[in-house]
């Protein structure tokens, strides 16, 4: 087990290296420059600016310099937001995205598991159909549809919640609903499938034969086994929340990291884009690793080699 974790952790390094290399050269191949803002800079000034950021050197040298910087935990300065380093921006803005993402993940797990269990216990009865329909809707209606619709309904028409902004607790409600819905759908589906399969297994029949109450059968015997597939969903859930945050933060005008990623890519703020890509790649890989380790810890049939 420790060997497995160590090997997987070590595998993250070459993967991150691929990520950095790909995004570095992709970004640099993009036409335009971070220093072009509408009017043309005089050549001398542009040259000076380029020199300040070390961009006058050949691309290969810049790449190596960047790699050395990353290894030392230095992600460079932002090219657009003067006086801010990428690390500062991440420290300032990532917590907001993280707050939204984590809350949504926890909420989605509680609601999704609850709905999934209900659907499985009432298989092929009205509650089951209701949950399945809800799940299909949650999967098919993308965040960029639910977000404006919700803003229109709760924000403009009913005036219950602020349409956009950040800083008050009310600002959190709509973004979290929007991020949670698709995750609830998927988690409910996974839970339902897991429950239905487990309810048919022999040990559940044994538990029933022993005369245990159905509450105890579900909570102590069925659920732990049925929730196993959910553990491997941790990585994809994380990726889905990150993708969702790109949309949600833009619609609700939240100054989180997702919003800056798109803006920075369009403005050719190379270092910020790289920083965000590295952070999120590492996050997803760690979540995937965590999922595998958790899975092995929970399921005695799995041994990690």
């Amino acid at each position: 087990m420790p060997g497995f974790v160590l090997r997987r952790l070590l595998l993250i390094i070459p993967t991150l290296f691929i990520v950095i290399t790909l995004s570095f050269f992709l970004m640099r191949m993009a036409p335009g420059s971070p220093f072009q803002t509408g009017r043309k800079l005089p050549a001398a000034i542009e040259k000076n600016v380029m020199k300040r950021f070390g961009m006058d050197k050949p691309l290969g040298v810049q790449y190596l310099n960047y790699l050395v910087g990353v290894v030392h935990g230095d992600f460079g300065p932002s090219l657009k937001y003067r006086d801010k380093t990428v690390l500062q921006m991440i420290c300032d803005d990532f917590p907001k995205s993280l707050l939204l993402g984590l809350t949504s993940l926890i909420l989605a797990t509680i609601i999704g598991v609850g709905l999934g269990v209900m659907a499985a216990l009432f298989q092929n009865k009205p509650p089951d159909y209701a949950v399945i329909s809800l799940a299909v809707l949650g999967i098919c209606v993308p965040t960029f549809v639910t977000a404006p619709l919700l803003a229109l309904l709760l924000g403009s028409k009913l005036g219950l919640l602020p349409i956009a902004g950040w800083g008050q607790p009310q600002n959190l409600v709509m973004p979290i609903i929007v991020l949670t819905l698709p995750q609830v759908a998927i988690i409910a589906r996974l839970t339902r499938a897991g429950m239905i399969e487990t309810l048919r297994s022999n040990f559940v029949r044994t538990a029933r034969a022993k005369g245990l109450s159905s509450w105890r059968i579900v909570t102590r015997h069925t659920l732990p086994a049925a929730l196993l597939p959910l553990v491997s969903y941790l990585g994809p859930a994380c990726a889905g929340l990150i993708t969702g945050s790109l949309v949600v933060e833009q619609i609700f005008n939240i100054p989180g990291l997702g919003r800056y990623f798109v803006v920075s890519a369009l403005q050719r703020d190379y270092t910020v884009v790289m920083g965000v890509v590295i952070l999120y790649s590492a996050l997803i890989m760690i979540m995937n690793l965590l999922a595998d380790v958790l899975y092995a810890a929970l399921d005695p049939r799995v041994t990690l080699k």
Partner: protein
Amino acid sequence: MSAPEAVKGRSLWDDARRRLLSNPAAAASLVLLTVLVLAALVGPFLTPFSYDHLNKDDVLVSPLTHGHLLGTDVLGRDLLARVFVGLRVSLMVGVVATFVSLGIGVTYGSIAGYVGGRVDEVMMRIVDILYSLPFIFFVILLMVTFGKSLILLFVAIGAVEWLTMARIVRGQTLSLKEKEFIEAARAAGLTTPAIILRHIAPNLLGPVVVYVTLTIPGVILAESFLSFLGLGVQEPLTSLGTLVSEGARDMELAPWTLIFPALVMALTLIGFNFIGDGLRDALDPKDR
């Protein structure tokens, strides 16, 4: 196909069709999608207004006024015509990008599965690594770098979506190789190409078809997502994602610009998902 009136065996596909059509959700979705595809193909020719014509006197008129069935957008363009064209573009992106991913995925997966051994291990490890990357970022970077053309959109999304297809095809090939009926075919003296064509390919087709129907909505979603961020289909051409994003911008003044495109998009995605699920049930005889 009119076969002679002899006793006819029921093929896997006859069976599948029967099962699919007896599944109400899938059958309804089949009708729904047929209507949507027809609307996308024929619709743009039927509307009295062109999708990119600016009706200067009819800016943001509500539905059912001045001949605009679904109203107009902020530039006075007929929304119905735009929804038709948007649907056409979204479906096209969905189908083409899915076939790009199909091509890459099936080739890659069947090579890995058929050759096996070390090659398989290395090829699948590469897929594992690619799986753990946040791909939406790369699509965004690709679109930023190489401009926002439709062709690139196909390639970028297709290049991202092939991983699961490769895994499915590889797993399937791997297990099929060991099956008794393949052994029997070999014992009966069939050549390798004949075995692949007659016995492996048809069995591969099932899961692949299921996954294709589930990939198309995924691709449409990805395209819409990019268009929403302003990186996908460009003006004056439009897609469902572009329409939704424009509608989200103007919803305070003209909620219909959001509601109709969002509705069409949801219906399209729901249709594909139900058919995919139905096909999965229909094509998996073990499940019954």
